[in-house]
């Protein structure tokens, strides 16, 4: 079928402000938006710029705003968009560098600020540290995060201020806070209790709705809030 793809364009070396270009192409219902962008780049305009790598929803390179909602372009199939008109724009809240490529530095800085790494300075046993199936299950959901930024850049609070850590950084912290083996919970909760921390979340649920890994992000944020209030992790 023929589809119309309207793409946000901005070339900082030529354009004073962004504009949209529209392309018409034939596509199959099972085609990914990423396939269409590759086609446009290959046959219509080689200057079109976007990030991509694994093309099946794991590497997290190609987060974009597609018909007004954040998706990974490789996980957005034409048949699931229920429209022959597709608008592709960069994710919001981060500076656009070129076309669909945004500056990810602030996003990664927020991630790095929550101590997103395992801390346990006790000497490890000769074999593995033991962890029950239930203890492991407690933080399973947030281990799925691929740092694609769909959540954080769908959050109106983050749009208003990129000082807000954003859903992704809280998810990253949650993964360690609820890991029975980790020993840095107090320090992480202190970071998240900051004025730009977890309380900026107004439970708008945009993050949860668009997470390509189907992580229950708002719930994870709620669990971190509860841990701060009660001083308990359970």
């Amino acid at each position, binding site marked *: 079928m023929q589809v119309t793809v309207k793409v946000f364009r901005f070339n900082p070396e030529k354009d004073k402000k962004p504009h949209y270009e529209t392309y018409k192409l034939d596509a199959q219902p099972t085609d990914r938006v990423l396939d269409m962008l590759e086609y446009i780049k290959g046959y219509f305009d080689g200057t079109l710029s976007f990030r991509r790598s694994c093309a099946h929803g*794991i590497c997290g390179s190609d987060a974009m705003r597609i018909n007004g909602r954040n998706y990974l372009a490789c996980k957005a199939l034409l048949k699931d968009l229920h429209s022959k008109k597709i608008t592709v724009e960069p994710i919001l809240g981060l500076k656009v560098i070129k076309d669909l490529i945004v500056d990810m530095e602030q996003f990664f800085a927020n991630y790095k600020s929550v101590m997103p790494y395992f*801390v346990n300075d006790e000497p490890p046993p000769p*074999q593995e540290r033991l962890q029950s*199936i239930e203890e492991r299950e407690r933080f399973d959901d947030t281990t799925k995060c*691929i740092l694609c930024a769909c959540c954080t850049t769908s959050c109106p609070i983050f749009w208003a201020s990129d000082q807000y850590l954003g859903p992704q950084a809280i998810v990253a912290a949650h993964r360690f806070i609820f890991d029975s*083996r*980790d020993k840095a919970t107090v320090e992480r909760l202190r970071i998240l209790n900051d004025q730009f921390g977890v309380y900026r979340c107004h439970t708008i649920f945009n993050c949860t709705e668009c997470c390509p890994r189907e992580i229950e992000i708002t719930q994870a944020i709620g669990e971190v809030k509860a841990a701060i209030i009660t001083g308990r992790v359970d």
Partner: protein
Amino acid sequence: MKKHQFDVIVIGAGGAGLMAALYASKTANTAVISKLYPTRSHTGTAQGGVGAALANEEEDHWEWHTFDSVKGSDYLGDQDAIEFMCYEAVQAVYELEHYGLPFSRTPEGKIAQRPFGGHTNNETGKPVRRACYAADRTGHMILQTLYQQCLKNNVNFYDEFQVVDLLVVNGAAAGVVAIELGTSELHVFHAKSVIFATGGHGRVWDITSNAYAYTGDGIAIPMRHGIPMEDMEFFQFHPTGIYKLGILITEGVRGEGGVLINGKGERFMERYAPKVKDLASRDVISRAMYLEMKAGNGINGQNYLYLDVRPETVNKYAALDGRRRPDGSPYTMTGEEIIAKLPDIVDFARTYLGVDPVAQPMPVQPTAHYTMGGIPTNKYGEAVSDENNTVMPGLYAAGEVACVSVHGANRLGTNSLLDLIVFGKHAGLRAAEYALGADFQPLPEDPTEFTRAQFDRIRNAQGNEKILEISSTMKTVMMDSVGMFRTGDGMQSALETVRELRERYKHIPLHDQGMVFNTELINIWELGNLLEIAELTTVCALARTESRGAHARDDYPKRDDVNWLKHSLAWVKPNGEIELRYKPVVITKFQPKERVY
């Protein structure tokens, strides 16, 4: 042009690169240069598990793992290196757990393990639970955990920098040249040790599980400097890629009891591998699938088969096989258990196939998956430059880009993640040790001269060729003629096509002449790498007149240990000619014998 100086430079931020960086940075000033943000690396897509004989679920021994890997390699793997890897595996996996990796757990709280293709109890010949897993996202968890530990240890990162050249001075590595993708500015990284950890090149083939980024940069760059490549004819096709898309469906599906079914409804692997059936090694299964489809036994006569993991199917064949749980009770699976153990597979099938794998079988076909060949190294990750294993000072390689060789002619599932962590670690240690005792080589007078010449040719190319047309012709011809089954005539014709494509490649005009994120420029450069690798692969495959592991020839259907129990080494000479030489396989305990699964 900007200049930087480090003791150790690591190129690539997947499992091998990050492990190398973690170890090198303990003693040496180290930086990682990666064309992707580290968490985008292809290690993240590995699913089923990392092999190590922990014996958490049943009896197992690292010596069994060694034999299985030797047999899996079709006796082309170097046995000293395989022993080293399988022995080190156990501590390496514990170390990952100590870094916080969230492995799935057994009821006793230990690391959970599942069966995988080619991994057996050496006494009974039956599958053994050796793959240590974190649901079906083991690679994702390894990548995340190692990146997190690198952050904790303040490793230096240059993200979104494309390395495009290796500097070789006085026969030693002296650094690399990279393009900063955001600005196109050239950076020279002056280093005492350079570790390539850039992954593979599956984008040479049409149906592939590999990422767009998998363009063989770490093969193409050193080979332009006279460094040979080992065993390039061996490329693995994984049996279960999603039909038409090639997206990987882990062997863990079959580990959990899934089976392959043909158009007649038969579990055909019984005929090809009577003992382990659907858990034979990948080369054996992919070839069986090809033969089934060729015989008209595809689903509806088409070029695909079913991977069936519906609970009723799993339970039926588990009962027929007499499969039991570790506690001795009969093995059964419910739909909920399948979803819990294979959540990403369920998601891929629903998203890309519109199939719910708990209720319907999944259409699959073999998919280009893994590079067995690469930069020849010894078991410490040191690159060797000839058939006498002469070490090239300052150059290291680890992971998929390297050929130690622990995978020989065919890699066993779970041994790639293992390769990353074991050889990444040792390459990092050796590179740091060497750097601390060595002086910097002087930089060449004009270190970016070769790079500028390469990119000026791309920027100034005249013509109307299209990148997508050239790449798709290459992928199709390589899939058809230098894929799972090969013949001399077919490969000769493929070689001619690839050489024509290399000429046409020079006439791709560059539309984007800008400096900011010029992805078109980089894509054209990457295609150049793929074309050179396609040619090299074909030349090596044409020369090897036998069938072994992943290299299967219709015109030479038997393994020939008299003439071909040896590694190939291929040099690209300055005039473009390819020279082949060979070196012996290291055999310690296991004399080659016929492979039966």
